[in-house]
């Protein structure tokens, strides 16, 4: 039981991170129907920028943890959003209206470019990061096994929940969210009605990148090691999460993220660490076979 609770906590934390990345995939997919393969690498860049900002904080002598966190968050989010914007502007916007595969290939190309850019600019070695938030509270204890909820895990979960609510509010009520939903339904009609489609798509990428940057920051603190390759695996898992939850659906992305996190944590705890990714993909396949639109996805109605 105690072991299970501990894995539940770990899985939820992991799932929160995946969920944040998955939102970027699901929003972009919802609006322009493409798989943004470079999104995982944008998240990796977010992690690097958070890490560099942490180092700069150290150099400037800022040691008060909340201020450190706030600085990392703001700087990483703003600068990573610029990456999201640039990727869209350079690689996807010129291909709007061409075949579905063309942007997919530029996305793969962009992903290779970003990975190698970071490898060149920051060196290929893994970067260890010193823990910022230490300690935690003990929830249960039995026969020497301590169930611990670390402060960091609390921060991650609380931050994710806060961001998700803010985000849901943004999509549901603001003009920006309305424009996005309009573009998602019918881009041509939206542009006829005065929605600036290009700008809306750019904003979607910026928002996705910003959330990915938050995830990157969390991962930097949580796993305390970064290298240029982390974006690939996390990206695939997050995309899996987005598909699992029903691509195009925001709550679906979050649900999918949490599920993938839980599956991964439970599988590694009870079966084997090596096959945790196989388990995640296997469950995805099973879900898609029985519910081809994902858990919360709307069924696609095809007009002939």
């Amino acid at each position, binding site marked *: 039981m105690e072991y299970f609770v501990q894995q539940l906590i770990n899985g939820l934390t992991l799932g929160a991170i995946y969920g944040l990345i998955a939102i970027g995939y699901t929003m972009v*997919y919802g609006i322009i*129907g493409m*798989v943004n393969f470079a999104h995982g690498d944008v998240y990796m860049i977010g992690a*690097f920028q958070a890490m*560099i900002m942490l*180092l*700069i904080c150290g150099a400037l002598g800022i040691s008060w943890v909340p201020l450190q966190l706030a600085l990392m968050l703001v700087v990483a989010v703003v*600068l990573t959003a*610029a990456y999201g914007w*640039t990727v869209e502007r*350079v*690689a996807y916007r*010129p*291909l709007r209206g*061409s*075949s579905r*595969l*063309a942007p*997919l*290939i*530029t996305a*793969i*190309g962009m*992903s*290779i*470019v970003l*990975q*190698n*850019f*970071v*490898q*060149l*600019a*920051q*060196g*290929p*070695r893994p*970067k*260890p990061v*010193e823990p910022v938030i230490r300690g935690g509270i003990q929830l249960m204890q039995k026969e020497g096994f301590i169930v611990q909820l670390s402060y960091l895990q609390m921060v991650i979960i609380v931050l994710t929940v806060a961001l998700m609510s803010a985000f849901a509010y943004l999509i549901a009520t603001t003009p920006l969210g309305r424009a996005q939903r309009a573009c998602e339904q019918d881009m041509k009609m939206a542009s006829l009605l005065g929605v600036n489609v290009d700008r809306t798509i750019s904003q979607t990428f910026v928002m996705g990148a910003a959330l990915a940057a938050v995830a990157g920051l969390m991962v930097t603190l949580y796993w305390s090691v970064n290298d240029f390759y982390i974006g*690939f695996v996390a990206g*695939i898992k997050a*995309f*899996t999460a987005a*598909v699992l939850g029903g*691509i195009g659906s925001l709550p679906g992305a979050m649900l999918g993220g949490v599920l993938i996190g839980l599956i991964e944590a439970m599988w590694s705890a009870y079966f*084997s660490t*090596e*096959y945790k*990714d*196989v388990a995640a*993909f*296997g469950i*995805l*396949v099973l879900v*898609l076979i029985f519910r*081809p639109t994902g858990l919360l996805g709307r069924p*696609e109605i*095809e007009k*002939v």
Partner: protein
Amino acid sequence: MSIAHARAGAATRTSPYLVALKEAGLTAFIVFMLSILMVGFQTQALQGQPLSYVTRFDAVIWSIVIVPFGRFLLALDRQGISKPALVIGLVGFFYLFGSVVLAWMTGSLGETTDNSGAIVTYVIGGPPLPYVDPIIDAIFGLGSLFVAAIAWSTLRRARRGTLTLEAREAQEHQRMNWARRASLILGPILVAVAVALPFTPWADRALVETLTLILTYVMLGWGLNIVVGLAGLLDLGYVAFYAVGAYSFAKFSVDLGLGFWQCLPLAGLMAASFGVLLGFPVLRLRGDYLAIVTLGFGEMIRIVLENWQSFTNGPNGIGGISRITFFGLPFERTPPEGTESFHQFFGIEFSTLQRIVFLYYVILSLALVTNFVTIRLRKLPIGRAWEALREDETACRALGINPTNTKLTAFAMGAMFAGFAGSFFAVRQGFISPESFKFLESAIILSIVVLGGMGSQVGVALAAILLVGLPEVLRELALYRMLFFGGAMVMIMLWRPRGLLAHREPTILLDQSGWFWRRKAKQ
């Protein structure tokens, strides 16, 4: 037309220079945001010390100057002032790129390692360049060339004047015709060159090996073309079948001691049955769901290969795969007792090149078989059904084509050729490990298909030469190789969104007068 006029009118009211300056300012801001942390600070992970950093603000400042300047020129170009972009772009290219190439050719490029262990090259005694690393200077030089090229095309278009819609359509048609004719002529030429090449004087070991590698990808590209180009199924895990082919080949060869020509069909069969096995549950899915599931399967197979120690020997891989023989005659200087080797049988001098050239011909013929089968299949009902399925699944269903079975055959067919290619890979390397079957491979193969122009066989071959040959040529650039590779992928796709030789037309057309007519055989 009127829109273009209105836009031009609006631009002239506010000075074009002001507009360009505004864009340049925005670009400068973006470049600053992109580079300030990622380029300005280089983190260093030294052994036993906490993470530290060194600053590189000079590079950031140069980028903030150069990139917006290029943007300024492009903005001017867009508003009809193209000459400055052309001139300055060319000057920038010759200065930045030329001086680096000159330094490289005269041997005045030096190398040093910085404290993070990365190799930094620099120009000795050359003209002053903005970046310490000459490759980055060269990249910016290529960027200048890009600016000049855009200005050049604008100037050319301006001289030709605005086209009417019909003229543009005619031009498009002409281009399509050109692509088709080019592939008709280029195909046999490429094959002839490929057959003759090992006998030409400059066919050394390195060249033949590179060509063998390229041909492997050509074959994989043609195999995937059946799935993606013909049947329109987006497969992101094609490398899984390549891996299955290679591993089953290795198991048959090492454990059962079968020879290459016995293992090859078995490995193809294994891969094809894996295709059916994996395809069966997922082929009901459409479009991108299929993509992610195939991606997942690709990763799953790699993970299984990495962890199933007793069967695949894990990350260490399987070695000692017996070498290829010339239909039973080994390529060895001293063959084992009682057998005859290739050079003894034919009474020629022994050379290590013989085996390599033979491997080259094996993959060439395998690739050509793939090509031939694909071309013939397109003319059979099943090939027609694939193409119809690609265009409209619902209509196919209405016409009584079973989509799942049709897709499954395409999937199995593609998988089989991947299995053949995998066997070839295993026998060429003599050693396989999960390392060789990463997602990047799938991505490269898919890019070859899409860049080539989906469905175009010659296009696939050209794209493979470009995408696989380019990194081999650029081996000098070491770490920058993949950066160029990714950049090239993006640029080619932006330049020709429908692929290098795109002429995706159905094999059968309904003529306007109501007659069916069959197009002549095309590649």
